[in-house]
């Protein structure tokens, strides 16, 4: 009787090999979520200019998950005349343009929505961010809510009442301003209240 062949002798090891390799990869990829998935908005809902988009996602604070639903309409991306929430004239350095993003939003007044980020993208995918303060501009902290009626904040600190300001309207308009190099054309507007969820609206 001849000895069993190599493949036969090692058949269980061969069966286990892909399983072990997959398990090793899974065990060593525990940082993928933190360093990639949660680094930027990746799970995107789509919309286009001029139409209402309903966007649902979740934030979290001391009380746990805070789900929300907001309706957003991108009205226009145009040349800005003043910083958002300020009457001061814009003083721009040479080679810089200021773009205002006209958005209309609607949400229940008891939903915290101030903690959002606004990013503009050009055709190459280069990203420009809303900044409330930089050497060239100073404007409202949040690009998504009316500066004088922000609505409730997330409950982040013990002993601080998260809802003190005036009631936010059911529907409101904002015009946050983003600085870009001259000649850059905005093709997409990306709104997010925390990765991985985001709302991507084409500006064309």
């Amino acid at each position, binding site marked *: 009787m001849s*000895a069993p062949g190599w493949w036969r002798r090692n058949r269980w090891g061969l069966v286990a090999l892909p399983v072990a390799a997959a398990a090793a990869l899974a065990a060593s990829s525990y940082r993928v979520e933190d360093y990639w998935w949660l680094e930027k908005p990746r799970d995107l809902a789509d919309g286009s200019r001029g139409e209402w988009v309903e966007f649902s996602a979740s934030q979290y604070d001391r009380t746990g998950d805070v789900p929300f639903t907001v309706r957003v309409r991108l009205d226009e991306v145009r040349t800005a005349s003043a910083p958002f929430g300020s009457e001061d004239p814009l003083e721009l*350095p*040479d*080679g*810089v343009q200021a773009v205002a993003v006209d958005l209309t939003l609607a949400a229940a007044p008891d939903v915290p929505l101030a903690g959002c980020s606004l990013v503009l993208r050009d055709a190459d*995918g*280069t*990203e*420009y*961010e809303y*900044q409330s*303060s*930089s*050497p*060239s501009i100073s404007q409202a902290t949040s690009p998504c809510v009316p500066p004088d009626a922000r609505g409730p904040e997330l409950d982040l600190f013990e002993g601080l009442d998260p809802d003190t300001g005036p009631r936010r309207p059911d529907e409101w308009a904002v015009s946050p301003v*983003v*600085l*870009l*190099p001259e000649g*850059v054309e905005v093709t997409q507007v990306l709104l997010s209240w925390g990765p991985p969820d985001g709302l991507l609206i084409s500006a064309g």
Partner: protein
Amino acid sequence: MGGARRVVRAEPPSRFGRLPRRAAFAVLLVAALATGRAVQELLPVSEDASAPFERTGGVGDEIALRWGEVEVTSVEGSTRIADPYGAVHVTSGVYVVVGWTYTAAGEPQIPSYVAIRDTEGRVFRTSVERNPYSSGGAAQPGIPRRVTAAIEVPVDAVAGAELLVTMEQNPENHRRDDIAVVDLGLTSDDAEAWAAAEEPLPVEDPADGTAP
């Protein structure tokens, strides 16, 4: 494997026959580990594996990096600086004041790590009080950001000093990323002149756009 089995069959193991073989195996194992350790210590493997990619240039060169572009526009020195708040700082060494322009690529980014490295490899970093530097926050891509860093160094560190700039504040995280290394073109004559200079050099606030 089959061979090993045959050997065992040919020489049935005895209590006395097995021990020397086990001892020899242990000695060989320790020797192999020691050799590995010695090789690892002799070769600069760990430093090379964790070193950033140095992109070099001189004053006035536009150095292209993964995260943007860096160009040193001015280098001055004195024993005194006036920080953006008007406070004057005095040193018994030399303040090297470097003006440079940073243009981000791809997305808004902050060059957080700014330091001077001398010819001995000593590194002097910016700090909050004594070594003022402000990035002005993340710079939008394509919009040049003019910044100034003032760093206090011993007089003997001036000649041949280089400016280091990169995104990550923690040097342990510089591996596998680009770092700008700018030869500031300084000599021991500069060091002597600056060690005697008493005029406070202004440290400007960051500003956007190309220099007017």
